[in-house]
């Protein structure tokens, strides 16, 4: 690890001022950043600890739930408002990492964590366009079991590793940002970028912009929602494919539905095409299968991850069937 100094931000304004300075990086729980510093992937000169700012979880006047960016993952999953109103979010967080890591990791840090692409992490031995723009991609033609099947580019096939973000994408969470000019919000599905020819640019945050909170709007699909994660072992592993979904039924018709996929792209993949196909239609196994088929129509898998295309379709259809009362 290269030498680094450590500061604690005393306020959001402090974090904005310090976070935008050359060589400064914001530090949440450190579960990803400290590891990447040790691997030589991240080389900040100054760490600005923001983990003690904005840790509250509270209900706003309009009924939405506002989660401070410094709230620990475990605190969010355990919170009564989240468990009862947004079960897909509690389950997504509990599906991620281990209890130790969930105790450390913050909400803001979870959203801004880096890919677990093995070639990205291998600073000494592998080429990576995300780590060193223009250097090439050794994942192409490499071990691609954990790589993207949607929205990838010749430059980068990495996936976003977060479970929490997949549920937040399905819930249309709003991310509150602070910058030198004030504050703004961005919809969670718009926070992360697809790689294109600039995989080093991962989010829409401007330099020095800080995530302050995540707001869960009231939702008519969240009460009947869940998160299913398919992985190589039953616990403590990254997703091969995951599905966050919520559904509102009017008799046997779907009045509203939200679906997002994890493990398949460089960002949480909001399944807008499947949602549009299902909304207003019947809640049947055939409809679920057809919607999943349509969502994955543009999938461009590699030989090492082609299995994820049928796996994603089946998992999406099974989760929707479960939420509609048919356990599949």
């Amino acid at each position, binding site marked *: 690890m290269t030498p680094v100094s450590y500061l604690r931000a005393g306020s959001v304004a402090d974090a904005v001022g310090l976070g935008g300075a050359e060589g400064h990086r914001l530090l949440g729980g*450190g579960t990803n950043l400290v*590891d990447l510093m040790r691997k030589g992937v991240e080389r900040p000169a100054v760490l600005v*600890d923001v983990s003690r700012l904005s840790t509250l979880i509270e209900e706003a006047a309009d009924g939405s739930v506002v989660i401070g960016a410094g709230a620990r993952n475990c605190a969010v*999953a355990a919170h009564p408002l989240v468990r009862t109103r947004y079960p897909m979010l509690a389950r997504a967080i509990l599906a991620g990492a281990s*209890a130790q*890591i969930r105790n450390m990791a913050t909400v803001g840090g979870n959203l801004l964590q880096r890919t677990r692409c093995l070639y990205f992490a291998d600073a000494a031995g592998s080429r990576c366009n995300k780590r060193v723009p223009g250097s090439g991609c050794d994942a192409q033609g490499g071990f691609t079991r954990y790589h993207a099947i949607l929205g990838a580019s010749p430059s980068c096939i990495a996936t976003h590793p977060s479970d929490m973000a997949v549920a937040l994408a399905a819930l249309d969470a709003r991310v509150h940002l602070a910058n030198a000019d004030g504050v703004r919000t961005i919809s969670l599905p718009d926070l992360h970028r697809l790689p294109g020819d600039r995989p080093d640019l991962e989010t829409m945050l401007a330099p020095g912009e800080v995530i302050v909170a995540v707001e869960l709007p009231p939702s008519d699909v969240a009460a009947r929602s869940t998160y299913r994660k398919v992985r190589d072992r039953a*616990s403590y592993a990254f997703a091969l494919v995951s599905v966050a979904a919520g559904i509102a039924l009017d008799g046997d018709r779907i009045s509203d539905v939200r679906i997002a996929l994890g493990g398949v792209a460089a960002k949480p993949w909001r399944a807008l095409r499947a949602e549009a196909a299902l909304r207003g239609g019947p809640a049947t196994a055939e409809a679920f299968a057809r919607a999943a088929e349509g969502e994955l129509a543009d999938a461009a898998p590699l030989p090492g991850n082609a299995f994820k295309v049928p796996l994603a379709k089946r998992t999406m259809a099974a989760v929707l069937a479960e939420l509609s009362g048919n356990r599949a």
Partner: protein
Amino acid sequence: MAIRINGTDVARPADARVSLLDLLRERLHLTGTKVGCNQGACGACTVLVDGERVLSCLTLAAQADGRDVTTIEGLGANGLHALQTAFLEHDGLQCGYCTPGQICAASAMLAEIDAGIPSYVTQDLSGPVMLSREEVRERMSGNLCRCGAHNGIIDAIMAVAAERAA
């Protein structure tokens, strides 16, 4: 400020790169906490910070400033902890390298269940948490045992949980 370790205040290291794990082992010679993978994958370095289990390998010592750290030496300071005795009785170890992390994790895990914190396998997110082998298995998945003593580890934890309930 200082880091309180097993009840004693320790100054934060000047070098910000020092992990909590390295502070414990290399500077304070509290070698009960083990170095496993040093990258957050195995749980051998688990300690308690303000009563919650965390990975000391991925915690910078500076982040623990003003916090209360408990290691296996602290848990066992007044004779063997109930979990230590149960691990011995139920063969919850072979080589013993992962054991301090397992025991620190298990002690915090029982507190999490007491606090009603759910896990991925908890069916009813709004109800109380029922202790079961499946729950313990899921909640202890962050602590690997290369010797494969997991069944004994779960037996030991279930025995302690049953004793506390009695």
